[in-house]
């Protein structure tokens, strides 16, 4: 089972089992018998054994958060990043404004101008992270894979102004080497080429 099939498989009941519920006692004698049976069963001791074994095994599951962090899923929608083209270092954003249009909480603002080559570039690109709901539409709609979601999730701030800086989102020029092709939200899946079907034009 692979791909979508595992999500389409709704036969989840295979591991379910029916809990045996004994009939409720009706007469006082039956009640008394149940009390004696339950009292003499070693259930309480079994409970003690389980907790003691857990302690002795010392199988600790705590993540000491500020020191240790759990890995984040590649599809996690954290703080946005604006990417650059790897070869030239130019900004990927072509200023099409689709993200601004699709943003459902109206928190993206773009200002564009044509540059000296006649190419449209964004002069301002701000996302108000105080309003952003991290729905991922902007990353999904971006035709150039320029605005993407990063992995960063610790973005509390005291200043609203810090929620919208283009400089913070944009990959710095000196760190262009470290910019990785984005695998997450809005990016084509690894097998995208295989999934493309030829347009049936030969009617």
């Amino acid at each position, binding site marked *: 089972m692979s791909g979508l099939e595992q999500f389409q498989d709704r036969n989840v009941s295979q591991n379910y089992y029916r809990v045996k519920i004994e009939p409720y006692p009706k007469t006082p004698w039956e009640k008394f018998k149940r009390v004696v049976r339950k009292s003499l069963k070693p259930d309480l001791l079994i409970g003690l054994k*389980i907790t003691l074994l857990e302690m002795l095994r010392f199988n600790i599951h*705590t993540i000491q958060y500020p020191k240790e962090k759990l890995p984040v899923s590649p599809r996690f929608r954290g703080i946005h990043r604006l990417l650059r083209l790897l070869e030239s270092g130019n900004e990927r954003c072509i200023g099409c404004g689709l993200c601004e249009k699709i943003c459902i909480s109206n928190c993206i603002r773009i200002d564009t101008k044509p540059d000296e080559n006649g190419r449209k570039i964004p002069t301002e690109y701000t996302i108000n992270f105080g309003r952003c709901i991290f729905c991922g539409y902007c990353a999904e709609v971006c035709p150039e894979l320029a605005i993407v979601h990063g992995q960063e999730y610790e973005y509390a701030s005291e200043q609203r102004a810090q929620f919208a800086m283009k400089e913070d989102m944009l990959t710095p020029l000196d760190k262009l080497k470290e910019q990785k092709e984005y695998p997450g939200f809005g990016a084509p899946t690894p097998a995208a080429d295989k999934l493309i079907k030829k347009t049936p034009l030969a009617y």
Partner: protein
Amino acid sequence: METAFIIETIVKILVVLGLFSALAGFATYVERKVLAFMQRRLGPMHVGPYGILQVLADGIKLFTKEDFIPQGAVRPIFMIAPVITAATAFIAMAAIPMFPEFTIGGYTVRPIISDMNVGLLFVLGVMGIGLYGPLLAGMASGNKWSLLGAARTAIQFLSYEVVTGLSVLAPVMIVGSLSLIDFNNYQAGGVGNWLVWKQPIAFILFLIAGFAETNRTPFDLLEHEAEVISGYATEYSGMRWGLFFIGEYANMFTIGFLVSLIFLGGFNDLWFIPGAIAILLKVFFFIFLFIWARASWPHVRPDQLMWLCWKVLMPIAVVNVVITGIVMMFF
């Protein structure tokens, strides 16, 4: 001689007060750690190495917190109630022989503040008075949760007082004394002489009642968060709240010492282990048992608690006393 006795008693009192206040603090740390390990957590880790200074941090917090008294509370009673809990918990320790006699510089010290001939009765009685702490606290707070907690206190402590008394009656009949030192001496001479082999039912009943008297988990109805917020302690904060918990942990130690002394050979030497260490091991096992049970078991409903006390434990205790009496009379 008289002056020496007074000085000795005062020193003993100070040692017991200081030691058990500190131990109560340390027990909270141990409890949090053991509970955490049993639940696959780490517990306090940040204050000091492995969180060992957490006790200190908690203490500073408790001492510096505002001593808040609600407007609707009955001030004098609200203020005195935690003191009753803590004081009775420590007064009860006066009649408990903690260790065997030892000698410092030719002076023999008996590690019991007051060796009265009704020591057991005194301990149980003073622990019974301890019920006034939560009861008055709940009634004086002017809060519904506190009142419910206080009502539960009254029913729980009073009911289990009966079980404690009846269950301990059978060992008292066998030993023929109420002095805890006599209990200890009766069991001298190895594990075979322990009273737990003669009175296993009384031992279990006393232990169950001990859980109820110290308000520990299967019977922690007085302050169960999910039902009555914090019970009688809802309106308390700062060191007044802390006094309740010092009292509770001191009571845990008292019950630990009582069970060890009455049923498990007290401070007699155990194989190669000297008596002082033997009783410490026993007491710490019971402290661990209190924590262990808290990690393992759910708590009971109030009606189940009363049912268990009056319809199960008390008849068993009475039958146990009767059978003990018959056996002692005819054999």
